[in-house]
């Protein structure tokens, strides 16, 4: 770079763009695709217009050198480094579960409890939450969004009616709260139809605001059972969505929904939603509906959310390793006894982890062989561990040229 040019750059003067041979320079950068990650290539393309060919070539060579220097070495104990890197700041994570201020937000487990939930790949998170973004044309209009929110909120019969059993006459009486029924924009006749369909029988008596059913059972237990079944009848909404709150999009493009309770499949099929941006915090549900790769993404994003929420900085590469390890076999596995550690190939490694006697016993009965390929087994038998320099299996022939 000429001194004059450098001066210009320092002053922030826009450097004259060297339009000559730009294509050639871009071509040069493109040659490095595959050698460098996409992000670096993109950055290089940004300076293509303002850098000389000679400088650019030097820069790219240097970038490759630096990139390779920073790649992880074969044999590096990446898992242990990841465990320590997440564990150390994790100890500083407070156990407090705090609630957001305001009415619309929901109380979500934060910090360590939530992190454990993610890593354990729990089937049901303690607070399942969905974030539903809507299509353009709907999300700008708050009225429409609220209307949609009301529509997907699940309403059960027990929410809007009093259900009582009358044991003397062997009847079940459903008394609707007409105000609440109005609130969900359902007429009495419509509600009656839905209830009758689900109860699989016609009401014996119909009043202004009540229905009387005769289940035809005589035992107290079966009448109670019938009543409980009626209470669960869904009058409206998507099953599993207990509450939906309307929130403003952070980029100001409108409103989105946050729901308590999740049903990814049920929501994805609705025509109003932007199906590419419906998120659930239930990783198992994502795995079932969208596949392992989506679940891996979810683990990564959820874990990062927890750490960011606590103001803890962890290099995302460590979290990626955890997410990759959890999804390696094609399904989400917990870290721990039920998952990764409990399914290790080596008997000795499993015995060293938990339930020593059971593992040894079972291995003895089935005639299992330990190939001593992992770290734990080799420590137990007192051999060098296959980590770092221990990975290398080379024998040098001495005395020969």
């Amino acid at each position, binding site marked *: 770079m000429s001194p004059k040019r450098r001066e210009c750059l320092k002053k922030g003067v826009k450097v004259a763009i060297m339009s000559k041979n730009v294509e050639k320079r871009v071509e040069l950068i493109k040659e490095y695709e595959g050698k460098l990650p996409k992000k670096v290539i993109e950055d290089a393309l940004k300076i293509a217009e303002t850098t000389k060919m000679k400088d650019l070539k030097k820069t790219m060579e240097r970038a490759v050198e630096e990139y390779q220097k920073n790649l992880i070495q074969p044999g590096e104990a990446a898992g242990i480094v990841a465990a320590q890197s997440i564990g150390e700041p994790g100890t500083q994570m407070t156990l407090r579960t705090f609630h957001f201020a305001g009415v619309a937000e929901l109380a979500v487990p934060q910090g360590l409890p939530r992190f454990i939930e993610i890593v354990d790949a729990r089937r049901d998170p303690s607070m399942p939450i969905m974030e539903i973004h809507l299509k353009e044309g709907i999300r700008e209009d708050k009225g429409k969004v609220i209307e949609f929110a009301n529509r997907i909120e699940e309403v059960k019969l027990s929410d809007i009616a009093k259900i009582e059993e009358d044991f003397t006459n062997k009847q079940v009486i459903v008394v609707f709260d007409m105000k609440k029924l109005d609130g969900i924009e359902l007429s009495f006749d419509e509600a009656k139809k839905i209830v009758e369909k689900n109860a699989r029988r016609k009401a014996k008596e119909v009043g202004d605001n009540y229905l009387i059913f005769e289940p035809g059972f005589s035992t107290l237990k079966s009448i109670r059972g019938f009543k409980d079944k009626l209470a669960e009848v869904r009058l409206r909404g998507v099953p599993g969505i207990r509450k939906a709150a309307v929130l403003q999009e952070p980029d100001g493009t409108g409103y989105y929904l946050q729901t308590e309770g999740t049903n990814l499949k049920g929501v994805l099929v609705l025509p109003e939603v932007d199906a590419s*941006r*419906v998120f659930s915090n239930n990783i198992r549900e994502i795995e079932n509906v969208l596949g392992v790769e989506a679940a891996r993404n979810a683990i990564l994003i959820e874990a990062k959310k927890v750490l960011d929420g606590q103001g803890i900085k962890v290099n995302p590469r460590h979290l990626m390793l955890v997410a990759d390890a959890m999804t390696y076999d094609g399904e989400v596995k917990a870290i721990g006894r039920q998952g990764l550690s409990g399914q290790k190939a080596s008997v000795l490694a499993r015995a060293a982890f938990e339930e020593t006697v059971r593992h040894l016993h079972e291995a003895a009965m089935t005639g299992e062989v330990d190939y001593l390929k992992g770290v734990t087994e080799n420590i137990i038998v007192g051999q060098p561990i296959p980590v770092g320099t221990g990975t290398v299996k080379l024998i040098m022939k001495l005395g020969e040229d």
Partner: protein
Amino acid sequence: MADLDPEVILSHEYVPKHEILKDKDVEKLLEQYKIESKMQLPKILSSDPVVKAIKAKKGDVLKITRKSMTAGEAVYYRVVI
């Protein structure tokens, strides 16, 4: 409930691009990483929604192009089991 429309699954932000690798590319891949058998690759179940959506069969190797927060884009491979 019926299966979701494949379009919906593939268009989701969480789902990266999955492609079925051609046989000769599989060989190249194994050669590049010095892998003896494709079964040593990370796995994906044949019952996986995305596998069904792109109609991959058992034994296929999928090339998965992920969006990565560190590298911009990262390529990963999985074999369908």
